[in-house]
């Protein structure tokens, strides 16, 4: 066995660092889904009638749909009646500071290194932490309030700003959109709501950390971000989850709306439990993320670093309606062991002079399977639309797979669409070269992978880029071969 293979063996046996369960009494509904469950969720959350109706419509529509199986991932059947659709920490006080929160909860946050405490404020991050399904603490709200920025949980938004939510909810991802989005529309428990009014530049990164905690609880977040004319906002999403034996379903929906000259930057670092090295117990991540560049010269930029989940099914997309609008997608998707990822983006060009850029970096290690699936559609009205796509795959070892499925559809002759794809491997000669300069095999792989991902990391806010690099290093552990 070579030196590098030994390193693999050693690292492969290391445990998932974030595997712990917080012991908090949880108020949860019994397993199963029917109209009564949906009404109960809506009632528990004291929602307006239109919201309950919308949920029910979504549920009825969902009943007519079939689970999609077109993606390049394999998993056993999901029993939707064997899932708990609502769980909230039992102690649910209104908190003005973290001192009032359940100490167990705070400890859990600390374990995760979540910047919730006072000192972390100095880092300039306002955190709306969703613990299981209900928001527990929100910071920085006042400062944001002064600027007229709303940043709160979806539940709170439905209480305080119902008309604003109603105006935009489901306008980008309708409840009929797809199987998982319909399910989410029916049962979503919470999520984040951000609204940046006309002409306001949000002075800090808005950040939410998600964490699935209660056993066998599917988590269905709903996030809505609206940037009015000339507004700017950067939103960060990061996640970890504890070890579980049964697969946990996660079906989130994220909607972004950018009006004239507005810009939304949405960054994700996703590190959910990927399952053990045989793939047992990981999270199923079936997410619908979509942004609408509704106004002229608006811009939406998705940046994601995906290292977790047993299965990832996710295509953050941009609908470029406004003339001169810009859509961007920067992605690093890393799979190890038995992980499966089918991820990519859709860029729908409708307005004139719309531009989109896709930079996708897939990294496959272990026996994992990593697919890029991307659609670029230039509609007949999209004069002078431009797209540039670059899809690279990096293979570590010889038991993993990488696939690229680009779909290009051009209905306007003035369009310019470019697609580049490469596949490369970390070679033994590269490792030896770095070894010979005094760099260990682990560090050599990190150096090569970080170099490979640089174009995407550059898009992340500074502190997030550091975290992304660290997470990637952690995910790489056990992958050197």
């Amino acid at each position, binding site marked *: 066995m070579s030196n590098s293979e030994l390193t693999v063996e050693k690292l492969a046996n290391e445990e998932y660092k974030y595997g712990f369960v917080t012991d908090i009494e949880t108020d949860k509904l019994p397993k199963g889904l029917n109209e009564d469950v949906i009404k109960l969720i809506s009632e528990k959350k004291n929602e307006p009638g239109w919201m309950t109706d919308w949920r029910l419509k979504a549920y009825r529509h969902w009943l007519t749909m079939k689970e999609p199986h077109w993606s390049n991932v394999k998993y056993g059947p999901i029993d939707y009646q064997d899932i708990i659709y609502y769980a909230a920490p039992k102690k649910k006080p209104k908190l003005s500071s973290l001192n009032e929160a359940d100490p167990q909860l705070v400890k859990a946050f600390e374990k995760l290194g979540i910047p919730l405490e006072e000192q972390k404020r100095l880092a300039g991050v306002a955190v709306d932490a969703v613990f299981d399904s209900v928001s527990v603490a929100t910071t920085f709200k006042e400062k944001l309030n002064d600027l007229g920025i709303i940043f709160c949980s979806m539940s709170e938004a439905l209480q305080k700003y119902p008309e604003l939510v109603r105006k935009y909810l489901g306008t980008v991802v309708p409840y009929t959109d797809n199987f998982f989005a319909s399910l989410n529309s029916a049962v979503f428990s919470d999520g984040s709501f951000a609204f940046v009014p006309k002409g306001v530049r949000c002075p800090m990164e808005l950040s939410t950390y998600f964490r699935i905690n209660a056993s066998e609880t599917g988590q269905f977040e709903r996030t809505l971000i609206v940037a009015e004319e000339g507004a700017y906002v950067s939103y960060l999403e990061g996640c970890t989850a504890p070890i579980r034996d049964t697969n946990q379903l996660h079906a989130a929906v994220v909607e972004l709306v950018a009006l004239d000259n507005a810009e939304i930057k949405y960054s994700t670092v996703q590190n959910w439990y990927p399952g053990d090295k045989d793939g047992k117990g990981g999270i199923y991540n079936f997410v619908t993320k979509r942004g609408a560049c509704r106004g002229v010269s608006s811009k939406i930029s998705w940046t994601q670093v995906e290292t977790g989940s047993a299965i990832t099914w996710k295509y953050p997309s941009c609908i470029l309606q406004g003339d001169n609008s810009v859509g961007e997608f920067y992605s690093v998707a890393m799979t190890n062991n038995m992980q499966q990822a089918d991820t990519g983006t859709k860029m729908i060009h409708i307005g004139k002079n719309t531009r989109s850029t896709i930079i996708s970096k897939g990294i496959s290690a272990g026996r994992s399977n990593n697919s890029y699936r991307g659609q670029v559609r230039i509609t007949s009205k999209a004069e002078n639309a431009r797209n540039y796509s670059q899809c690279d795959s990096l293979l570590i070892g010889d038991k993993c797979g990488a696939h690229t499925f680009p779909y290009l559809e051009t209905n306007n002759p003035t369009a310019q669409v470019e697609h580049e794809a490469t596949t490369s491997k970390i070679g033994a*000669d590269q490792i030896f070269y*770095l070894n010979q300069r005094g*760099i*260990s095999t682990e560090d050599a792989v990190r150096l090569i992978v970080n170099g490979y991902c640089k174009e995407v990391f550059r898009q992340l806010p500074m502190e997030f880029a550091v975290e992304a690099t660290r997470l990637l290093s952690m995910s790489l552990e056990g992958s050197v071969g």
Partner: protein
Amino acid sequence: MLEIKDLHASVEEKEILKGIDLKVNAGEVHAIMGPNGSGKSTLANVLAGRPEYRVTGGEALYEGKDLLAMAPETRAREGVFLAFQYPVELPGVNNTTFLRTALNEGRKYRGQPELSAGAFLALLKKKMQLVEMADTLLSRAVNEGFSGGEKKRNEILQMAVLEPRLAILDETDSGLDIDALRIVANSVNKLRSKENAIILVTHYQRLLNYIVPDFVHVLYNGKIVKSGGKELALELEEKGYDSVRQEEIAAK
């Protein structure tokens, strides 16, 4: 500094080195010459610890320590440097980041403080002048899109930065035009000192006009068949490897 005794090594079960004996002291420059397939590059790679090469017998002591028992990165940190015959491209890995990581790994190993980005850049600037290399190569990825000559010069830059005790130059002259060869040779000469030693693996006498060795060894069929001073290289150039081999056979 380096003492090789009866070293045997194989690649894919084929024995390439069949009993090498070589002693290198600090301050010396040794040239190892020989025809294609004689085992020159194998010797260089075995000393550096390339995993595909299996040592089947003998030993190599470096500063009294068992070199062959060390991991490749440990050998590097101990001060053994191999200038590769075919430098590897590392797409996306910034040349400066790479050099600084390599230098700091060695410093950490020796218990020295790591160099800050600023201090490193100052050092690097000096070394760049030494090897007459353009700044533009620093902001690029390691060897990516470099010409053959640029790659070889990048190897010498790494040598200049890492300041190895024992540098093994594996056919650093191959693929260089005469100007590049002169620059590379000048750089190496500037790096010569009483404290360090250099092993030059080369095919041609040409390089030795610029880097004058203290000793020349002829490697043939996995063995050193003849050793001598710098004049041996000229003799080889004149008579060819075959005649040297014939003489050797005759002598036996």
